[in-house]
Structures are given as C-alpha cells and as structure tokens.
C-alpha cells in the first residue's frame, strides 16, 4: 500500500529543501525507537502536525522520513519528536546510497548464482547417476545455456576486482577464482561441443555461489551497523546573522564569514565561527566540542567556538576565526590525519590471500606442466589444472572470516553494541591497553536530577515544563522523568526566558522551572508550583557498572588509563575511585600524542571516548568505541558504538572480538587442512566434478556451522 509513495519519496530525496517548491523530504535519526508502539506514535504524531504530509519510519535503520511543506523547519520537526518523547537528529539525505547499491548488486548476483546452481545441479545429478548418450549431451547443453549468462552476471564482482589487481601488477584471491571459473566454463563448453564425458559447469557456478555468500554477508554487516550512525558535523551552525555598519543584519553562510565581522547569535542557535563575545551575557552548551554537559557561562571577552550552542540570551560575537580555521575544523583535520594509520591495517583475509594466491597459481601451473611432461596430452593436463584451481579456492576460505564476523556482530547488536565492520572486530581483538575519556564515557554524560522529595504531581508538572526546552538541565530532567514513566501535565502559555527559566500555567496555578535565586555551588534548578518552591539538584553520575567493567578489562589483560580534558581535581578523584592511572587537562593533540607514544612502545591502545575533542584520538587508536550519546564526529570516527547507560559492552566487545578471531583461525585451519587432503587427489587427476561439488559444499557447511557457535558468545 505504501510502496508507491515510498518510491516517489526516494526519488525526491536528492532535491535540496531550498529548491523545492512545495513538498520536501527530511530524514531524522531517532535512536530511541524500540517497539511497534514507538512506530505508531512517531508516524501519527508527526502526521498530525500541520504541513506534514506523511511520515514513514524505517525501524531497522532507526530513521524516520518526513514529507512536509517547505515552510516547516527541521528544528520544528525535531521539537515535535522531542515532545513525543524521542531524541532526534536531522540526517543527511542518504549518505549510504553507495554502500547500499553495492550490497544490492551482490544480493542480485547471489540470487542469480543460486538459481543457476540449483538447476545445473538438477541436470548434473542425472548425468552422475547414469544418464548417457543423447540425454547426457542434451543435459550438458542445457547446463551450458544456464551457466554462461550466470557466470557473466554473477562473476562480475570477482572479475572486476581481479582485473583491478592485475592492472596494478598484484594478485589477490579474486585472480585464481576468476581464472578457475573462466577456464572451467571454457573447457566445459569445449567438452559439451565435442560430446565429452565431464562438464564442470556445476563446479564453476557453485564456487561463485558460495563465494558470493561470503561477500554478501560482509556487505550486510557494514550497512546495517552504519545506518544507525548520524551525519557528520550536522549540528555546526550553517549560517550567521551578521551586523552591518548601519546596524542592519543579514544572513551569511558559514563559509563566507570573515574575521572581524560581528555576528548576532540568538538563544538556541549554534555558533557558526570562533570568536570573542563583545556584548551580552549567556551560557553556552559546549558538549559537542568537549563532551562536557554542564552549561558554560560566557560574558564580554569570553571566547566561543563554532559548534557550541547559545542557550540563554542573544550575544554579539566578533569573529576571530571562520570556516577552515575554526577549532572544529582543526579537529576534523587532526582526525583525518590520524585515521590514515588505521587505513593501512590489512585484514586477516587479505593477509591470508597474499600468501595463498601465489601458491594456488604455481600449484595449478605445476600440475599442468607435470602432466604434459608425463605425456598426458594438453586436454587431460588442462582438466587436472582446473580441478586443482577449483579445489584450492575453497569457498571455506571466502566464508571463514565473514561468517564468523557477521554472527559475532549480530550477537553484539543484541547486547547494544554496533561494530562498524569486520576489520574493527579484528582490531578490537588485539588491543592491550584501554584509554578512557571521563565525562560522558565513564559518566553518563548528562546532568541527572535528584528526584527524591518530588511527589508524582510535581513530577508531572516538571516534565510538562522541561520537555518544552532544549536546555541541558531540562533535557536531563525530562529524560529521567520519562524513564520513571511519568506523564506530562498539560501546561498552558509556556514561556522560556533566557537566563531565568520556564514559566507557565497548570490548572490556573502559576508554575515555573527556574534558576535558583542564590548562585549555589552545585548545578540545580527550582520548581515552583503556586507558592511551593522545591530545589532539584543535578549531577553527572558515574555509569553504574563502570567499576565492574574496568575490573573485567583487567581480567582480559587490559590496563585502563583515564585521559580527560577535564580539570585535574575532578579527574584525580575519579581515578582514585577506580584505582587507575589518569592524565587531566589533555588537549586533542595531546591525546593523539599519548596514543602515538603507546604505539611506539609496542602497545595496541583502545580509545573509548565521546566528545568531539576525543575524535582525533578515536581515529588514531588501534581500535575505538564511542557511546551512543557521543558527538556525531566521534561516532563516525569510532569502530563501534554502544547504546544505553551501561559500560559493560566495552569489555564484552573485546571478549567477543577475541573469540571471533579464535573461530576465524579455526576456520582457516580447517580450510587449509581440507586442502592438504584434497590437493593430492586433484593433482593425481582423481577429482571428478562430483567430488569437487561434494568437497566444496561440505567444507562450506562445516565453516558456517563452526561460525554459528559465536551466536552464544555474547551471553
């Protein structure tokens, strides 16, 4: 029913909001949806909004696509989602289009190969069980008719990769595969035309089928986990109001801002450039840069950075650095450089192939030359060489790694950890030291209210007020209250006054959620209902299982170190509590420096952090994990993202990664052991298509069965 609409929606996704005349599509990442109720709530809640034509949730990707009229801003939709009880972030149009197309192509190739394999097997089994004469020839012709298009279509991923490797005068696993498949098909065609005894179409197509299974598994894993991760730098201010000489203001895009310009930033907007405040007082949310959730007060003379959000009152800022020179851009650059060392990591399958592929070639060539010298004639020698090629490209080899990694990552997803790709799992397996950021990583990262002393009525009023604001304290309050299952009361005439708080009326009683009168030391706010006043204090608590997780890591042989940008006193207190080494007031570059030093000392450090300031360190570390509440940049840079309030997935990730590698090694041992048995048979010329088919499917099944043992690993 929805299909037609969805296709039209996808087709329009490329249009930019500004250019569309009437309806535009926006996409949002909504990580909090968990059940059918959430789907219904989001879709109905959004559809009720004036100007929204349709909303469609994609539950697997935790996304919602909204088709709405152009005047409706993304912020209003995010606000509406927050009212419905879901945190949301605008997402790029479709950042995964490329990956998606790749995995679709692989799936199609797999389907075609599967179809071909089954039908050719049907015919081959008749031949093996004794069909002779004309029937056999007919069946061979039919097989050829099916196999040729199938090989051309399904073999493309291998042929193109093999060609690419050959162009750079290298060889990879796809070269022997391509040669084996092409030679087997060519020879079988010749056999068919001359009415020969054996045709190898089944072997060729079956090889493609099993190898495509491995590739498709690999691609599925990459896509599924990346889909949950938001867009890069989405929250940085895209434009700013600039004050001209006569006091008039105009909107200028972030990349056109210049040093010396004065920008006027109203409450709720993100700074688009770095600068110094020249008038106005406010507090800003710096969490994107530092991961520090506590609002930071600014006044005349304070420095502000692009990406921070102005919370209270309007300020005028003289720009000191714009576009590529901002602190945020500097971090992005550091991250780029740091990430390059990781791209040099060679995956285990490729390492194996590097040794294996030349061996396969020379063995097949030797078989051919050997039999020629023995006087077997070129036809028989070629048949034997092809048998060697097919037998030594075991599908088990292609399946060994992806099957284990997909099973492991599925098990981890159920426990709230998304691993981005197979190479991440491999790297997580060999880390030997863990570096933790403090705020947002060891702690929850959000100010949490102390709710004792509030009765249900007060709680419901507090939620009604708090959900209207995007102030960090309000957000923390709303989250905690929602977790307790509190329903918000209807509050009328809610007003948010910068620097003061929220006011409104509930059942004709004046209610408010305001800043406490006295400038108290700890973070707090005051709830006013009529004449009753109550203070709610806030703290950023440690994750409940932080201590157990660090102990768990120690059991796995990983010492932990805290590496924080926070003040010395706060960090030292935490470090004492957990009994670990710590370094305070470390800059992003300092974190990279420390990681590089550890690497030079022969360690493989794992970084766990959330702030934008951890981004470069996350990219530089051998492997990295970020919490789901981390800034977008950090989630992008990390190898894995864990969701929820617990830190346990970090230790779990290392443990599961290690058992995955153990299974992968077992799979390899099996695949190689099988070769040692089968290759002499092939060299002796005793491998018929029947034996090749049984050996291939048998070894693949064993490898898959072995990998499935991992599904219990995360328990």
């Amino acid at each position: 029913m929805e299909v037609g609409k969805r296709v039209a929606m996808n087709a329009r996704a490329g249009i930019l909001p500004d250019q569309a005349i009437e309806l535009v599509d926006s996409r949002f990442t909504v990580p909090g949806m968990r059940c059918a109720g959430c789907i219904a709530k989001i879709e109905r809640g959004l559809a009720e909004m004036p100007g929204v034509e349709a909303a469609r949730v994609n539950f697997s990707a935790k996304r919602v696509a909204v088709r709405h009229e152009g005047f409706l801003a993304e912020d209003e939709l995010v606000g509406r989602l927050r009212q419905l009880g879901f945190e949301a972030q605008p997402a790029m149009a479709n950042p995964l289009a490329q990956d998606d197309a790749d995995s679709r192509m692989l799936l199609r190739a797999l389907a075609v190969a599967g179809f071909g394999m089954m039908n050719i097997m049907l015919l081959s089994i008749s031949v093996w069980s004794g069909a002779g004469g004309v029937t056999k020839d007919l069946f061979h012709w039919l097989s050829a008719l099916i196999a040729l298009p199938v090989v051309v279509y399904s073999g493309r991923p291998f042929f193109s990769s093999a060609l690419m490797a050959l162009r750079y005068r290298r060889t990879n696993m796809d070269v022997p595969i391509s040669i084996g498949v092409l030679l087997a098909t060519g020879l079988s065609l010749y056999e068919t035309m001359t009415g020969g005894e054996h045709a190898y179409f089944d072997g060729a197509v079956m090889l493609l089928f099993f190898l495509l299974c491995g590739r498709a598994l690999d691609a599925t894993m990459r896509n599924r986990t990346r889909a949950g991760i938001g867009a890069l730098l989405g929250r940085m201010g895209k434009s700013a109001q600039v004050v001209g000489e006569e006091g008039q203001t105009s909107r200028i895009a972030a990349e056109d801002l210049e040093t010396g310009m004065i920008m006027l930033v109203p409450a709720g907007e993100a700074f688009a450039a770095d600068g110094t405040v020249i008038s106005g007082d406010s507090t800003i949310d710096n969490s994107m840069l530092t991961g520090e959730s506590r609002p930071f007060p600014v006044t005349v003379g304070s420095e502000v950075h692009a990406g921070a959000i102005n919370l209270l009152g309007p300020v005028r800022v003289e720009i000191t650095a714009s576009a590529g020179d901002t602190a945020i851009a500097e971090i992005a650059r550091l991250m780029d450089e740091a990430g390059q060392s990781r791209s040099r990591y060679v995956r285990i399958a490729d390492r194996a192939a590097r040794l294996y592929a030349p061996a396969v070639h020379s063995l097949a060539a030797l078989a051919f030359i050997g039999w020629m010298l023995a006087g077997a004639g070129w036809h028989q020698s070629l048949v034997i060489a092809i048998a060697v090629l097919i037998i030594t490209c075991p599908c088990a080899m292609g399946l060994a790694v992806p099957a284990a990694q997909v099973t492991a990552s599925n098990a981890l997803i159920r426990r709230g950890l998304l691993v981005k790709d197979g190479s991440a799992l491999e790297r997580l397996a060999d880390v030997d030291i863990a570096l933790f950021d403090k705020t947002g990583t060891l702690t929850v990262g959000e100010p949490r209210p102390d709710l004792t002393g509030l009765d249900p009525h007060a709680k419901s009023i507090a939620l009604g007020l708090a959900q209207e604001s995007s102030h960090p304290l309000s957000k923390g309050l709303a989250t905690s209250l929602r977790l307790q299952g509190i329903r918000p009361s209807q509050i009328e005439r809610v007003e948010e006054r910068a620097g003061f708080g929220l006011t409104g009326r509930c059942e004709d009683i004046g209610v408010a959620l305001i800043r406490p009168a006295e400038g108290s030391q700890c973070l707090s706010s005051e709830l006013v209902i009529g004449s009753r006043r109550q203070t709610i204090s806030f703290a950023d608590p440690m994750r409940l299982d932080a201590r157990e997780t660090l102990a768990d890591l120690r059991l796995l042989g990983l010492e932990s170190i805290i590496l924080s940008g926070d003040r010395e006193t706060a960090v030292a207190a935490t470090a004492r509590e957990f009994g670990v080494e710590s370094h305070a007031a470390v800059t992003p570059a300092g974190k990279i420096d420390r990681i590089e030093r550890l690497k030079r000392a022969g360690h493989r450090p794992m970084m766990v952090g959330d702030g934008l300031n951890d981004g470069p360190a996350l990219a530089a570390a051998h492997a990295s994990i970020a919490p789901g509440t981390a800034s977008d940049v950090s989630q992008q840079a990390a190898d894995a993202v864990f969701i929820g309030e617990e830190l346990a997935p970090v230790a779990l990730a290392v443990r599961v990664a290690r058992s995955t590698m153990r299974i992968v090694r077992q799979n390899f041992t099996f695949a190689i052991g099988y070769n040692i048995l089968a290759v002499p048979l092939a060299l002796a010329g005793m491998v018929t298509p029947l034996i090749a088919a049984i050996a291939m499917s048998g070894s693949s099944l064993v490898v898959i069965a072995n990998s499935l043992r991992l599904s219990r690993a995360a328990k």
Partner: protein
Amino acid sequence: MTGLAFLIPIALGMGAVGLACFFWAMRHGQFDDLDGAANRILIDEEDDE
C-alpha cells in the same frame, strides 16, 4: 523421455519465476525495513492509511 520435454522447462520456469519475484521484491524495497515490518503487524490501525 518425452516427459523431459515438459518437466525440464517447468523446472526451469519455476526457478525463473522465483528469481523474478526476488528481483521484484528487492526493487520495491521489501527488504529495506525487516524489523519494522515485523513490528508493524502489532500496530492497531484505527484509520486505514
């Protein structure tokens, strides 16, 4: 033997139909949101969309 003349085309045809169905399903986004489809069955539709 004449049976083969019918049976083989039928077998191939059935396989091809299955393949065509799979391609159709893929092109129309049937596999885009597998978990969502499993959950949507639980939503009470008050108004038909």
